[in-house]
């Protein structure tokens, strides 16, 4: 019997030791990354790097075997990416989900693209001519482009794609469009009702993803979701939800000599840790949207970050908004909202959850963007002030009760915020939502919660979701936005004739939403971060809110 007890103790100790040994993974993983580069090592470039010279079309001779091919070293290889959720509507990219967009970009190209500064330049439309005085937008399209199914890309097909979008729930994006028509074989003229600063973004990027209208006509919407048919550098070969999405090289790609890769594989991996293991064993090159803690672990282990340190590239900031229009809810009271904002320690949240990539913000526009108003006072962390405000509003210790919706993806931040609110004497009731539950809340049909989590875009053109006549997200549910003048102010931002006017309107909007009415409480924004081995070049991963990359110029080495 003693033996049994001894053996037991020994074994337990052994298990713990074994696990401990396994934990010193730092060195091993670092060598993994370098091993990979040793086999085929050209001069290491710091990825990602947008190299304009290589993107110029028609410069290289065709054929991979030509010895004079200056890009020979870039050719070949299959890029493997681990993606954590299954994007199940990628072939019809009208959804706003960033994961859908980044996957769809492999095969579907848009009329315009963002550069590093967030400015839009023409891509499938080689020139985007804006005429605010008409008002109109003229698109001069690339010639000789074909969709993967052989259909010609021209002015007619662009109009057809717009038609299909209109038929399928994108009316809101075309609300400002008088008409669009093909005014030449490769020229589309879009007449607007009124000039808006976000018109180019809406029509060339949000609704500018050129999927094949023929594919839609030959099949239906459900088919389109899992069949990505565009003009892009890669052609879809498999799309299995929950497993993988694979692409092979498009040999008839319109930019000669490109793409460099033989193929791209997106491997769906529901568990973060499994994705980390795949990267460590070299089964994938990159994790798309890793969790912050895994990003940090992998960075420490010697892997490379793919991202841009520019605030213009931030996808969105994390925060919460007050969403109860119901009578008698605590958050309908301005003072309570302000107390809640004062109770939040932004710096601490940013410190604990962003691993040095966070930017603290007190308004939708993050510091460093044109939308940010530096004069907004906001609600600095001050527990005493929070308590005093609560008292003013008529709530004693523990009497104020709020409901907080709980989204599993932000579990840690949620618990921290809950803790902060409880420290100033606010009672927090938890209400769990899952991904679909989110939709129920955001859809505006069931506004039963008092505080919602939200990840908001930082660019003014995307705020129509909150500040239009019929908002899809209830930022303004605690208040009559129209009476408060916020909707007018937002309209001014979007229709201002000059940049100075727009700037003034944006500053006023920030002041109204934060200092005047306290509609929401953003915590921080995070700079883009993908993590991978150091073999990926010129991919632009992490640029422009993580939704765009440049598959045609990407190469492995």
């Amino acid at each position, binding site marked *: 019997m003693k*033996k*049994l007890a001894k*053996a*037991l103790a020994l*074994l*337990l100790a052994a*298990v713990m030791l*074994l*696990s401990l*040994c*396994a*934990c010193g*993974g730092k060195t*091993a*993983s670092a060598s993994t990354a370098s091993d990979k580069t040793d086999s085929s090592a050209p001069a290491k470039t710091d990825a990602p790097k947008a190299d304009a010279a290589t993107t110029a079309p028609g410069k290289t001779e065709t054929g991979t075997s030509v010895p004079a091919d200056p890009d020979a070293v870039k050719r070949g290889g299959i890029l493997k990416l681990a993606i954590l959720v*299954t994007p*199940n509507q990628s072939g019809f990219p009208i959804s706003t989900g960033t994961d859908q967009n980044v996957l769809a970009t492999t095969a579907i190209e848009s009329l315009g693209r963002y550069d590093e500064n967030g400015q839009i330049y023409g891509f499938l439309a080689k020139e985007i001519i804006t005429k605010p005085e008409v008002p109109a937008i003229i698109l001069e399209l690339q010639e000789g482009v074909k969709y993967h199914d052989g259909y010609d890309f021209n002015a007619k097909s662009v109009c057809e794609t717009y038609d299909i979008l209109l038929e399928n*729930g994108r009316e809101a994006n075309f609300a400002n469009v008088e008409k669009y028509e093909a005014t030449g074989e490769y020229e589309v003229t879009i007449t607007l009702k009124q000039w808006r600063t976000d018109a180019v973004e809406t029509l060339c990027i949000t609704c500018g993803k050129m999927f094949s209208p023929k594919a839609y006509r030959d099949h239906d919407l*459900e088919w389109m*979701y*899992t069949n990505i048919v565009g003009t892009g550098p890669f052609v879809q070969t498999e799309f*299995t*939800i*929950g*497993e993988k999405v694979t692409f092979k090289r498009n040999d008839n790609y319109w930019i000669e000599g490109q793409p460099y890769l033989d193929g791209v594989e997106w*491997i769906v*991996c*529901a*568990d973060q*840790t*499994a*994705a980390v*293991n*795949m990267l*460590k*064993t070299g*089964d994938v090159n990159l994790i798309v949207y890793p969790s912050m803690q895994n990003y940090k672990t992998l960075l420490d282990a010697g892997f490379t970050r793919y991202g841009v340190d520019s605030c213009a590239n931030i996808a969105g900031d994390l925060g919460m908004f007050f969403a109860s229009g119901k009578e008698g809810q605590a958050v309908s009271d301005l003072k309570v909202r302000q107390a809640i904002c004062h109770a939040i320690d932004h710096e601490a949240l940013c410190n604990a959850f962003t691993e040095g990539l966070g930017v603290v913000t007190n308004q939708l526009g993050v510091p460093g963007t044109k939308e940010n108003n530096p004069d907004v006072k906001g609600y600095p962390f001050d527990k005493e002030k929070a308590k005093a405000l609560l008292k003013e509003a008529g709530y004693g210790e523990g009497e104020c009760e709020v409901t907080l919706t709980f989204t599993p993806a932000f579990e840690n931040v949620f618990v921290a915020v809950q803790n902060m609110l409880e420290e100033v004497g606010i009672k927090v009731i938890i209400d769990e939502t*899952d*991904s*679909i539950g989110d*939709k*129920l809340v955001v*859809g505006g*049909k*069931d506004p039963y919660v008092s505080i919602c989590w939200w990840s908001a875009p930082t660019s003014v053109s995307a705020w129509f979701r909150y500040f239009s006549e019929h908002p*899809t997200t209830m930022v303004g549910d605690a208040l009559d936005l129209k009476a408060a003048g916020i909707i007018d102010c937002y309209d001014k931002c979007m229709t201002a004739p000059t940049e100075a006017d727009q700037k003034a309107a944006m500053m006023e909007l920030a002041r109204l939403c934060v200092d005047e009415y306290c509609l929401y409480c953003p915590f921080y924004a995070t700079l883009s971060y993908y993590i991978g081995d150091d073999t990926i070049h010129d991919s632009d991963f992490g640029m422009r809110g993580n939704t765009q990359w440049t598959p045609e110029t990407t190469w492995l080495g």
Partner: protein
Amino acid sequence: MGRFLLKRLFQTVIILIIISLMAFALIHIIPGDPVYAMLGSDITPEYHDQVYESMGLNLPLVQQYFHWIGNFVQGKMGYSYHFKMDVLQLVQRRLPVTVILGISSAILSVVLGLLFGIITAVRRGKPIDSILTVLANIGIATPIFWLAVMLVLVFSIKLRWLPSWGFTMPWVDFGKSMKQMLMPTICMSVGGIASYTRQTRSSMLEVIGQDYIRTARSKGLKEGRIIMGHAVKNALIPILTLIGMTLRNCIGGSAIIERVFNIAGMGSVMVEALGNRDYITLQSGIIFLSLITCLCNLLVDIAYAYADPRIRLE
């Protein structure tokens, strides 16, 4: 034998009907409108009604059940709005993976469990008995995903002996398939191995104490023959009835294991379907997974009755 077979078959059918009733009830117990819950509330009312009708939800409850089960039996399980494919197609793709994993871990549980059980019973009180017993106990006590994560860390990342993820059908690439299956199978069978070891050990000890073993010993038969020929044979029969149970646990464990090892099987389908409120897939998945266990139970019972005639008369 014929009557016994018929009776068992009839029972299995009844069990399957009860399971189908449970799966059917699921969609009605979950709060809220199932279509809005599945597709989100931002769909148009027309689309909602269309899906609602296609699921037969507008019919009276009893009729609804028969509509659903009738379609199910004909293979028309419906369309999965999350996986964007026909449920039958999805199941055809994913179920074999889980079944292969489940059956191989059930087999591994039985083989290793019996082996360890016999060893510990024969070598009672010796060090090997202690070590195996302790191992079995720790095996049962460890959270399965923890064990899986540790194994991956050691064998995939540190030693690089085994791949950390994926699944290949054995007939496509046998070597690769075996390598990929090794760790998941071990994780899924740990619990089974441990309980078989314990069961076999005590059942063996009981048999060894019986008169006929003593008689055999006194006849001067070799110890090895006594153990294999008499003791094992008699100790095994009651243990084999547990196979169905083991398979059930293995298939249940696949929900966790498939996630850690990123295997696209039925377990991950169930978890993903639940997370995305894909009730259509969920209902069919429950029936198919239960069907496997039921069939396995049936086969075991038949084999058992074949081996032990007393059972047939029960």
